[in-house]
């Protein structure tokens, strides 16, 4: 049998060989996403962006924000009248005053922590851009920032297959409409390069299937993150947001240091049953220059462990325990006084520090 190293290299070589020979797909293949991935020079993303609305509606490609389809009414048309073509000047001129393109009420109920005031109609006072014609804007104001939803999105998004940005830290969602799979959140790690949080649809059937959520941090920055979003797939939808900005800085591995006699205990997992905690003693500790570097390096090796938001408990003997606080309600600020879900022991070792064990609720 070959060595592991040989087998891995062989697997890599074979996989490269297969994918490197993957032909370019023709630009007229049925799937717009495949088309966007065609890798044929010059057509990659533009083809995707233009083709998506057409494919989903079964018609010809529709340019961004193009009026004239029932699913994509022109700005200024009423929601109660059939949409009209821009070529139909008489219909355009007799249209009543502009109303909201998608309606005047958000199709979801939004819940925010108690210290947010709202909802208030209009753009967030922190927004750099005003609302566009026909766009519904609603915002909530908190102690350190605000949350704004725009429906439909700003023009730059409309008609595009606004897939998730892919930048770690962003939150992207599929929302609105009856054919969507529900609401998804993806901000598992809270990476520091978050720019914005937006409600987005990967299956954009029409502009009203996409809304735009922006969380503004202090001083109007949009570098805050949304910690948790819940949303059922079926109506009525409820969007619960637990912005982290009041309590967690971006890229903050350790949020608070406490001197204690004994660190808080790890709580027993409550669901589905009261399973005992799990723990491990590290057989081959890896030494790092500082305690936090030891923690950082270790948590990265463990699947599903967060890499920020730890409390640091310094014990009299110099031992340090890093703990992730139990969070009984994502809408409240977690405190270690309620117990921990992860406790990582870091001890002096050699010229540095090393993780020598951990305990977890196992939830």
């Amino acid at each position, binding site marked *: 049998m070959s060595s592991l190293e040989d087998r891995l290299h062989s697997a890599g070589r074979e*996989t490269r060989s297969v994918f*490197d*020979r993957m032909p370019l797909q023709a630009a007229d293949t049925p799937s717009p996403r*495949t088309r966007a991935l065609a890798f044929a020079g010059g*057509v990659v993303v533009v083809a995707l962006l233009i083709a998506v609305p057409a494919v989903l509606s079964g018609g010809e490609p529709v340019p961004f924000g193009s009026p004239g389809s029932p699913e994509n009414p022109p700005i200024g048309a009423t929601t109660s009248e059939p949409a009209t073509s821009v070529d139909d000047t008489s219909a355009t001129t007799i249209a009543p005053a502009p109303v909201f393109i998608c309606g005047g009420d958000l199709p979801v109920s939004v819940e925010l922590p108690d210290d947010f005031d709202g909802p208030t109609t209009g753009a967030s006072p922190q927004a750099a851009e005003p609302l566009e014609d026909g766009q519904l804007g609603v915002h909530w104001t908190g102690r350190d920032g605000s949350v704004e939803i725009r429906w439909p999105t700003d023009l730059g998004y409309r008609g595009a297959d606004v897939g998730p940005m892919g930048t770690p830290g962003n939150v992207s969602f599929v929302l609105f409409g009856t054919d969507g799979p529900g609401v998804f959140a993806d901000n598992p790690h809270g990476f520091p390069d978050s720019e914005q949080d937006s409600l987005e649809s990967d*299956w954009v059937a029409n502009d009203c299937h996409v809304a735009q959520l922006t969380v503004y941090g202090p001083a109007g920055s949009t570098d805050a993150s949304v910690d948790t979003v819940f949303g059922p797939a079926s109506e009525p939808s409820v969007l619960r947001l637990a912005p982290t900005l009041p309590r967690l800085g971006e890229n903050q591995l350790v949020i608070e240091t406490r001197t204690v006699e004994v660190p808080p205990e790890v709580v027993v997992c409550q669901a589905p049953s009261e399973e005992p905690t799990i723990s491990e003693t590290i057989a081959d500790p890896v030494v*790092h220059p500082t305690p936090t570097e030891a923690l950082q390096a270790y948590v990265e*090796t463990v699947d599903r462990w967060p890499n920020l938001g730890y409390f640091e408990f310094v014990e009299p003997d110099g031992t340090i325990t890093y703990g992730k606080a139990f969070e009984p309600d994502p809408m409240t600020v977690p405190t270690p006084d309620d117990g921990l879900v992860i406790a990582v022991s870091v001890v002096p070792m050699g010229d540095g520090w090393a993780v020598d064990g951990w305990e977890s609720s196992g939830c």
Partner: protein
Amino acid sequence: MRDLRRVTPVSVDRETKESPTDADHRVPVVRTFDGFVREHGRRLVGLAYTLSGSRSAAEDLTQDALLAAYRRWDEVSQMDDPAAWVRRVVANRSVSHIRRRMSEAKGLTRLELERPRPDVPPLSAETEAIWAEVRRLPRRQRQVIALRYYDQLSMSEIADVLGCSKESVNTHLRRARTTLARRLSEGDVT
């Protein structure tokens, strides 16, 4: 968010124009997006596949990463290594449970993508089995293995892609090899 306004027809120019080059044509002064895609696209799909295990999801994940790069191409193209940035996006998205699930779901709605593409031959059973074991590893270990053995990156390059130290990469690699050696030995497919 405002920079996404660049996703407009104006951007067509960015895709169709040729790369300006310096006088002796040795080094591109400005990288065009389409050139980047031609150079790296297939390899990115492969990386996404090794981490996700689904060809349709891999294409979707790669496309989304490329779309993200396209949207901020002015910024990404100026990076020392734009491919490292896109690899990072692909690698992170490919090990995100929810991202993978969404991409697979989208693939399922496009049945044509679920049919084996005759122009993309299957991998051998041995290779598939190895990647399957890799996908069982913790996410960072998965990424390190794929970047090391599929993308053939050095420790430094992997550290750059993942935004961590070389020491951290070494730790992940060592742990991953230990686990894989045990598991592949137990369920040897050779």
